[in-house]
């Protein structure tokens, strides 16, 4: 008996996507092209039927302020309430955790030299709930347990891409050592190119994003050397969120295969992508 990571999901977490779903606007001419590309992924995920999702995301001044800024944090609670980010909590189901696996991950990662912060109580914001909404639709309860794994990308500097990739490797090792038959998926969220601030707001770099998506499957190590400055210059100041995708990729097998890709501009200020990578060993 052992747990296994079956797939990785890369998914942008634009708040406006959540608002469009919550307000029933997904069929409007503006949103329809984006949402049309989500259907196949939802079907794939429903068929894959994971037991647990590890969701790598960043908190956006919701659970954590500038008071304490954890670089890597894991949520070990059995429930995570939906955060009020300044306009009331999203009307989505509460997120159920998997404390036993989460604690196992925390212990394993720390002993593997990743100095995780452990959260027993925390609300979760759009960074986590929007990818769930994108890939699960609007169920009355989320179809799997969720382990939130937060990465700081708000206060410069975020951890490097290379460090994030190695964290993914350590997560994979920890999951393999967990003695229970569990199908696990891991989400890497945020990105792609976008800039929300300054006179340069609205920057989108489709060639950068396309190259990133191409290499994520076949040559992920080459992406781990992209510096923060290169992300910010090429993919916008908030494009640096893409470091979180490396955690997901690092947790997958080297020969993981791309099974789905959707890319659309714009979702508000952002180039939105959704990509599924499957471990061949799990197929």
């Amino acid at each position, binding site marked *: 008996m052992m747990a296994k990571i079956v797939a990785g999901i890369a998914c942008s977490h634009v708040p406006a996507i959540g608002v469009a779903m919550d307000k029933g606007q997904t069929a409007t001419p503006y949103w329809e092209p984006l949402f049309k590309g989500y259907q196949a992924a939802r079907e794939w995920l429903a068929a894959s039927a994971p037991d647990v999702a590890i969701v790598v995301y960043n908190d956006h*001044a919701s659970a954590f302020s500038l008071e304490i800024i954890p670089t890597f944090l894991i949520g070990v609670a059995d429930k995570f309430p939906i955060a*009020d*980010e300044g306009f009331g909590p999203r009307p989505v189901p509460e997120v159920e955790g998997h404390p036993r696996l989460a604690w196992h991950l925390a212990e394993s990662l720390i002993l593997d030299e990743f100095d995780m912060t452990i959260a027993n109580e925390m609300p979760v914001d759009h960074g986590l709930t929007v990818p769930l909404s994108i890939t699960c639709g609007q169920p009355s309860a989320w179809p799997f347990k969720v382990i939130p794994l937060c990465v700081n990308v708000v206060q410069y500097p975020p951890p490097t891409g290379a460090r994030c990739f190695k964290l993914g490797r350590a997560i994979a090792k920890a999951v393999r050592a967990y003695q229970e038959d569990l199908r696990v998926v891991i989400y890497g969220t945020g990105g792609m190119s976008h800039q929300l*601030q300054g*006179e340069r707001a609205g*920057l989108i770099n489709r060639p950068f994003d396309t190259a990133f998506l191409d290499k994520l499957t076949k040559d992920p190590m080459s992406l781990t050397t992209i*510096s*923060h400055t290169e992300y910010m210059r090429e993919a916008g*100041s908030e494009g640096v969120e893409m470091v979180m995708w490396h955690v997901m990729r690092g947790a997958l097998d080297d020969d993981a295969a791309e099974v789905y890709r959707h890319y659309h501009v714009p979702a508000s200020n952002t180039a939105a992508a959704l990509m599924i990578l499957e471990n061949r060993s799990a197929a």
Partner: protein
Amino acid sequence: MTRTNDYDDIPGTYVYDSERGRMGYALNMFCMSLNKADNRKAFKANEAAYLDRYKLTAEQRRAVLERDWLGMLKVGGNIYYTIKIAFCDGLTFQDVAGMMSGVSKEAYAQMMLAGGRSPEGNRYKATADAAEKK
């Protein structure tokens, strides 16, 4: 002594680094308080009085009261925090992004629909300046 960083030459970009973190802490923590509905109500009822609870500089205070979104970034505001003021006003991220980039809401929305702001000519300050001078 002013430290230089390799991202300083990215035009129109305010990286929330240690320098801005020191400068903007009180401003951003005021914004953080707006996550609570009661605080949003109190802020909207009397903005000046509400701001008295926080140790803002005169310029930070002015920028908040005048909704000078770009000005807030220049005095240490972090966009994920200052956007909470915009949410209080019923504005969206896209509304504020348009205002920061100095174009109308319609022009900004149109730019995004057309594929967004191109990185061409927007990677380095010198290039951005040269392009503007043409």
